C-alpha cells in the first residue's frame, strides 16, 4: 500500500374558512387538496405519511347535529394500501406517535392534543397469516383454520392491534403544563378486509367504533378503511395531463359535468385502502370558551392539523428537548406540501410547526404551481386562462383566521398552515352537500373544514387560478375578472369517491349515503375494500358516467 493510498481516509472524519359565510363567492377563499407521499421523508417512511386530514361538524343522515354538537376529525395515514396484500396487511406502526392537534386561541400553537399509540399482539403466533378464517364453527376447521373473524378475540385475527388515546389540554393564556388524561378502556384497531370468507369486516368496523370513551363524550375509531380521497392522480402528476371531457379542453369541465354526482375520469385511489384515525369531540371541548359558539363569534373557529412522530436520536444526551420525538410529518390544508412548497424544503416544512410558517410565506403567496398551470393552459387554451399576479393575498384565509371562514373580528393570528373550521356553522344534510363546499355555496364544506366528500382537487385548481374570487384581476394585463371560464371550470373529472363496488358481496347494504357514498354516522368512513374482490378502476374501465349514462372512464 502506498502512502498516498494510506491517506485515503484522512478526510472521512473531518467531513466529515350564517352570516359570516354568506359572502363566500365574493371573498377570498383558498388554496388547496391530498398528500400521498408528498415529501421525500414520507416517501421513505410511508407508515408515518399522513395522506389527508378531514374536520367537519358531525351530522346524521338528515343533516342534524349530534347530541351534543360535535366535530369529527379524521387523519388518514399510510397511502395506497392494496387490500389483497397479505399476509400481514397494514398495521399501524407502534413506533409512530400519531397526533391530532387543535389551535383554539388563534396562536398557531396547540391548545389540545389527541395522541394515539398502537400496540401489536400476536394471538396465534403459529398461524402463517395475520388474518385467517373459515365458516361459523367455533372450532373452525378442526382447529387448523380459525372460524371467520367476527370479533377482536377471534384467534384468526392473528395480528391484533390495540391503542390508547391520550389527551393533552393546555391552559388558555398560560405557560403552565397541560392536563394529561389517557383512556383506560381497551380500544382495538379494525384490521384490513381480507375478504368475505376470512372476516366479517362490517362487524369489526361496528365493534371498533367506540363512543363516549371513558365517559368523556368522545368517540374514536382506528382501522383500515377505503381511502376517502379521490383524484385522477395519474393525470395530475403527468404534469397536469387531465382527461378531456365534453368541453374539449383537458381539465376543463362543462357545467353539466360539474354538476354530475359521478366521474368521467377514473379515480386512481379507487379500491385502495388507507389507515384512518377518527375522533368525534363535543364542540364544547374544542372552543376556548367551552361553549358552542355561533358562526359569528370570533371564538368559533379552530385550527386543526395532524402530525406523525418518531423517537428522536439526540446529538447530546441530557440536552433539554421540547419533545423526545422528532416530527416526521404534519398536515393541515390539503396539497400545501405537494403543490406549494418547493422540493428542497418539503421535509423541512413537514418537520416544522405551523406557528413558524411565516418562513414559507414566499411559497404561499407566490405559488410556482399557479405559474405552471398558467403556462400549460397558455398552450392548451391560448390566452384564455391567466391567473392573478402575486402576491396572492387572496389565499391568506387558508393560513390565517380570516373571513370567509372565520367571523369578522376574529384575531387573525400568525401565518400557520392548519385546516380552519368555523365550528358555529351547522352541518349540511348529506343529500344537499355540495362537493365544491364553500365555492359551491355550501357553508359547511371545504375550506371551512373539510368533509370526506369535498372535492378538494377541483376546489384547489379553481382557487389557485383565482377562478372563484371576486376582486382578483386576471387576463393578460391583469385587469379583467377571474371568475370566468375556464378559471372557474377546472377539474380532474373525478367528482366523487368511488363507491366500494363489492359492498353487496361483503354483506353491507344500508350504511352508505346516497349522494356522497360515505356513511351517515361516526366515523363516516367507507369500509375497506375486500382483498379478494377489490376493484381498481383504471382509465378505460367501466365505472364512469356521462349525462347519467354509464360509460367507460376516459382514457384521453
Amino acid at each position, binding site marked *: 500500500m502506498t502512502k498516498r493510498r*494510506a491517506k485515503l481516509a*484522512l478526510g472521512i472524519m473531518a467531513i466529515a374558512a350564517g352570516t359570516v359565510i354568506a359572502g363566500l363567492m365574493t371573498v377570498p377563499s383558498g388554496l388547496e387538496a391530498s398528500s400521498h407521499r408528498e415529501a421525500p421523508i414520507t416517501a421513505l417512511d410511508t407508515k408515518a405519511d399522513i395522506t389527508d386530514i378531514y374536520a367537519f361538524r358531525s351530522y346524521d343522515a338528515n343533516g342534524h347535529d349530534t347530541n351534543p354538537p360535535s366535530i369529527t376529525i379524521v387523519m388518514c395515514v399510510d397511502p395506497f394500501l392494496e387490500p389483497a396484500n397479505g399476509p400481514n396487511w397494514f398495521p399501524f406502526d407502534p413506533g409512530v406517535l400519531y397526533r391530532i392537534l387543535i389551535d383554539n386561541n388563534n396562536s398557531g400553537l396547540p391548545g389540545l392534543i389527541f395522541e394515539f399509540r398502537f400496540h401489536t399482539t400476536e394471538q396465534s403466533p403459529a398461524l402463517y397469516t395475520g388474518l385467517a378464517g373459515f365458516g361459523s364453527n367455533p372450532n373452525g376447521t378442526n382447529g387448523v383454520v380459525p372460524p371467520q373473524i367476527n370479533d377482536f378475540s377471534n384467534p384468526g385475527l392473528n395480528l391484533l392491534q390495540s391503542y390508547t388515546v391520550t389527551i393533552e389540554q393546555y391552559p388558555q393564556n398560560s405557560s403552565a403544563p397541560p392536563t394529561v388524561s389517557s383512556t383506560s378502556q381497551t380500544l382495538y384497531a379494525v384490521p384490513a378486509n381480507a375478504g368475505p370468507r376470512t372476516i366479517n369486516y362490517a362487524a369489526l368496523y361496528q365493534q371498533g367504533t367506540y363512543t363516549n370513551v371513558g365517559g368523556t363524550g368522545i368517540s374514536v375509531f382506528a382501522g383500515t378503511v377505503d381511502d376517502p380521497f379521490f383524484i385522477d392522480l395519474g393525470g395530475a402528476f403527468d404534469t397536469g395531463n387531465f382527461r378531456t371531457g365534453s368541453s374539449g379542453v383537458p381539465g376543463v369541465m362543462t357545467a353539466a359535468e360539474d354538476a354530475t354526482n359521478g366521474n368521467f375520469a377514473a379515480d386512481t385511489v379507487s379500491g385502495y385502502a388507507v389507515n384512518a384515525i377518527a375522533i368525534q369531540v363535543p364542540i364544547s371541548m374544542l372552543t376556548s370558551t367551552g361553549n358552542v359558539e355561533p358562526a359569528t363569534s370570533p371564538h368559533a373557529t379552530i385550527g386543526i392539523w395532524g402530525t406523525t412522530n418518531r423517537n428522536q436520536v439526540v446529538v*447530546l*444526551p441530557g440536552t433539554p428537548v421540547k419533545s423526545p420525538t422528532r416530527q416526521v410529518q404534519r398536515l393541515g390544508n390539503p396539497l400545501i406540501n405537494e403543490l406549494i412548497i418547493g422540493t428542497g424544503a418539503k421535509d423541512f416544512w413537514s418537520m416544522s410547526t405551523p406557528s413558524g410558517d411565516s418562513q414559507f410565506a414566499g411559497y404561499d403567496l407566490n405559488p410556482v404551481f399557479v405559474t405552471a398551470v398558467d403556462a400549460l393552459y397558455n398552450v392548451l387554451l391560448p390566452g384564455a386562462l391567466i391567473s392573478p399576479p402575486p402576491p396572492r393575498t387572496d389565499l391568506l384565509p387558508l393560513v390565517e383566521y380570516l373571513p370567509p371562514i372565520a367571523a369578522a373580528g376574529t384575531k387573525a393570528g400568525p401565518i400557520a398552515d392548519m385546516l380552519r373550521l368555523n365550528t358555529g356553522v351547522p352541518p349540511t344534510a348529506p343529500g344537499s352537500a355540495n362537493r365544491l363546499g364553500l365555492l359551491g355555496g355550501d357553508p359547511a364544506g371545504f375550506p371551512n373544514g373539510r368533509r370526506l366528500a369535498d372535492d378538494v382537487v377541483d376546489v384547489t385548481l379553481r382557487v389557485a387560478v383565482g377562478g372563484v374570487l371576486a376582486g382578483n384581476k386576471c387576463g393578460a394585463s391583469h385587469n379583467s375578472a377571474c371568475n370566468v371560464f375556464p378559471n372557474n371550470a377546472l377539474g380532474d373529472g373525478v367528482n366523487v369517491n368511488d363507491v366500494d363496488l363489492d359492498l353487496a358481496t361483503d354483506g353491507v347494504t344500508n350504511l352508505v349515503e346516497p349522494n356522497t357514498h360515505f356513511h351517515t354516522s361516526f366515523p363516516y368512513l367507507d369500509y375497506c375494500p375486500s382483498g379478494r374482490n377489490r376493484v381498481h378502476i383504471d382509465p378505460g374501465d367501466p365505472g364512469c358516467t356521462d349525462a347519467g349514462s354509464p360509460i367507460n372512464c376516459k382514457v384521453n
Partner: protein
Amino acid sequence: MQAWRGSILVILAAAAVSSAQVGLLSPAEEKIQTAEKAIQNNPQRYQNYNDLAFALVSWAREISDAKCYSQAAEAVEKSLSLAPGNFEALKAQVEVLLGQRRWKEALECARPLNQRTPDDVPIWGYLAEAAFALGDYDESVKATQWMLDLRQNNARGLLRAAELRVVHGYLDGALDFYNQVYQQVPPHEVAQIASILTHMAGAELMRGRVESAQKLLDQALQQFPGYYLSIETLARLRAAQGNSREAVDLWRRRNQELPTPESLYGLAQALEQDGQRDQAKAAYAEFERAATPLVDQPANANRELVLYNVTYAHNPAQALRVARLEVARRHDVFTLDAYAWALADNGQYAEAKAQMEKALAVGTQDAAFFYHAGVIASKLNDRSAAEHYFKESLDLNSVSTVSAQVRQELQSIETRDRSGQAAARGK
C-alpha cells in the same frame, strides 16, 4: 483554465505512478479521471466541473494537500461562469472553503444555501462543521440535530454528532455513534473502517483506556495498513505507555510523506520525551519553520505553536501573540485552552482563568485542560481548586501526556501543605 487543467494532469500523473504501485486508484482519483474525461468530451457542461471540484476536494482530504483545494476552487469558478448560481457549484464552493479552514466564509456561503434548500442534509453538515470548528457548539448541535432528524441514521450526521459528543465529554455516547456508523460501512471500504476505528481509539485513549485503544488500532491497521491517522494515534498511545522510543519511530514513520506542522510537532515532543535533546531541538526548529509562515493563514498550526512557545521555546510574548490571532478567528475549546495557557505564561492569571473556565464549561474530558486549569488556579493561590483540577485530570486519564506533570503538581501541593503544617506547629 488551461493552467489548472495542466496542474490536474500533473496530479493525475503522480496518481498514476502511485496507483501503479498498488494497482488501484482511490475513489477520489477515479472521480477526478472521470470528470476530466467528461470535460474533454463536453467542456461546456458545467456539471462536469462540479464533479471535478467535488472529486478534488475528496482527494485533498485524502492526501491533505492544500493545492487540490485551489484547483477545486478553479473548477467551481469555471462551472459558475458557465451556469451562474448553479446550486451544486455553490455547494462545492463551501466544501472548498471548509477544506481551506475558511470557516466563517464557509458559514456565510452555506447559510443562504440552507435557506434555499433546507432539506439538503450535506448543507446542514457544512453548517455543523463550520460552527464546530469556530467553537459555536450550540449552532453545530442544532445543525447536526437537523441532519439526524431529516435522515435518522445518516453516517455523516452520526459522525458529526460523535465529534460533538466527544467535545462535550460524552465519550460513551460518541463511541455509540461511531459504532453505528461502523455497522453501516461496507466491508470493502477499509479506509473508512480504519478511520472510524481510529477515532474510537482516540476517544478511548482520551480517558486512558490504553488496552481498548490498542485493540481498536490493531484492527484499524490490520484493515488498512499504514493509515497515517492510526499511526499518529498509536504514537500517542505509546507515549502514554511511556514507550517514547517507539513513539518516536511511529512519528518518523508518519512523517515520511506529507508531514504536517502538527505531525512535526508530534515528533519533536516524542523526541524530547525520549531524551533526544539535540534531535528534539532540530525537530522543534523544523516545526517552527513550517508553522510560523502559516500564522496568519486560515490553515495553520497555531495551537501547537502556542504550546511550543510556552513549553519549549519559552517565548511567552510570541505565544500570546499567536494565541490572540487564533482566538480572534475562533473560540473552540482547544483554542481557548491554548489562549488560557499563553495568558498564564504571561502572568495574566485572572484572564487565563476566565478563558480556561469557558473551555471547561463545554465539558470536554481532556486531561490536559484540567492540568492547565490546575496550574492557573495554583498561580492564583487557589489551592483547593488546583488540587481539584489536578485530581480530575488524573481521574480522567492517568496516562495522559501531562499525567507526570500533574502528579508533580499534586506532590508539590502536599509538600507545601506539610511545610505549612510544620511551620504552624513551630509557631
